[in-house]
């Protein structure tokens, strides 16, 4: 969707146009779902969470300011808060692995491991990342969010986001190796 089309839909949705909001749903629902899944929710819970996020978005869309963060970033914040609220209500979530650095590992071999992983194994591994790492993976790879916007929405500077991204890839590689399916070169 072009930025202009998006802006028009958002403007209409803010005026109460449910149809326009439906088109926004069509564009972003998968991203919300994918993020919820990356944060360890079951398919069913992730679907519920998607519904919750869009309902919350509808309730507060009139307060969204186009001159502020991009719409996707605003939506992501709602999603992340919904995930946290879920957690506080005691949903069982797999505990993410600790963020341990592989010993003296360069980017190369780890990245190669990840590059060979298939989608489902990779998703399983992503679910075991820390919250920040999963958020960066979701935003940078699934939402195609720019580094600048990602940094803003996560309230970090761009270097921190880059570091998180690299660390996420390395952790994924380690998890995939532990999975037993892969060997490093």
């Amino acid at each position, binding site marked *: 969707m072009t930025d202009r089309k998006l802006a028009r839909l958002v403007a209409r949705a803010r005026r109460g146009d449910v149809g326009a909001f439906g088109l926004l*749903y069509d564009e972003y629902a998968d991203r919300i*779902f994918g993020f919820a*899944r990356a944060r360890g929710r079951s398919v069913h819970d992730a679907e519920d969470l998607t519904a919750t996020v869009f309902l919350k978005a*509808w309730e507060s869309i009139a*307060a969204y300011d186009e001159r502020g963060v991009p719409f996707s970033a605003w939506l992501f914040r709602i999603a992340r808060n919904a995930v946290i609220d879920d957690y506080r209500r005691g949903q069982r979530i797999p505990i993410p692995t600790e963020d341990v650095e592989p010993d003296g590992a360069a980017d*190369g071999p780890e990245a*190669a491991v*990840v*590059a060979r992983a298939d989608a489902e194994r990779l998703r399983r591994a992503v679910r075991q990342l820390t919250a920040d790492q999963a958020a960066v*993976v979701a935003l940078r790879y699934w939402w195609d969010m720019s580094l600048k916007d990602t940094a803003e929405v996560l309230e970090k500077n761009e270097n921190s986001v880059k570091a998180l991204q690299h660390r996420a890839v390395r952790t994924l590689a380690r998890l995939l190796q532990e999975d037993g399916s892969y060997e490093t070169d």
Partner: protein
Amino acid sequence: MRPTDKRIDDTVAEVLRESFEPMDPQAKTAVRERVLHEARAHRRRGVLLTLPRRVAAAAVVATTLTGGLAYATNASLPGDALYPLKRAAENALVALLPSGALERHVLVELAARRAQEASRLEVRGDHELTSETLGEFRKAYEKASGPDGELADDETARIRENVSEQSGATKTEVDEATVPQNGSQGSGQQQPEGSSGPGPTEEPAPGPSGGSDGGGTGGQDSGSSGGGQQQGPGKWRQQSRNIRGPSGVLAL
């Protein structure tokens, strides 16, 4: 960065991208229906809030004149999401009216409204908003009473009518403002000709300056007050963030 590393990075990016898990299409549709159904139901409660500000203001103005339908808006108090809309509609209305009896009548009505709002807020225990609203009352009263500062008995009665006995500060303030001048009655009945329009020049608050042209001042009134509400970080904006439901008025 070595070329191989870059290529690997790109491959990683591609693979990670492809690992994106979309919703099952049927589930996506089902959730969509659920969300939109609730959105429609939710919307009905606050439709006025989601209209563009000027359209909604005009709607409220129209129904104010015909005396009917915008009860929820007209009954709103400072701190409510609808309140800025109410004030915007009032300003728009005042701007529309030529100076004369009708304008005078409306200004008295607005002073009465401010008094009533202050009274309701005070009875409710909201002291900070009460004193802000009393400030607004003073301004409205001065506008209504004009340069000679006097109102007719029936006008005064209208202003005092909806002030509760239980409101302390409000009742005192309104009583003091509306005390009839010794020996003069009814002088407020004079129809202000063009030059003595609304708004005395020594208005204390940052309101519109009292101009000599009634229509022009009216225009300034609505412009600056409306602008103040739209742009200024007033208390009303902050209050309304806590209201559930589309808090559309302030962000539009």
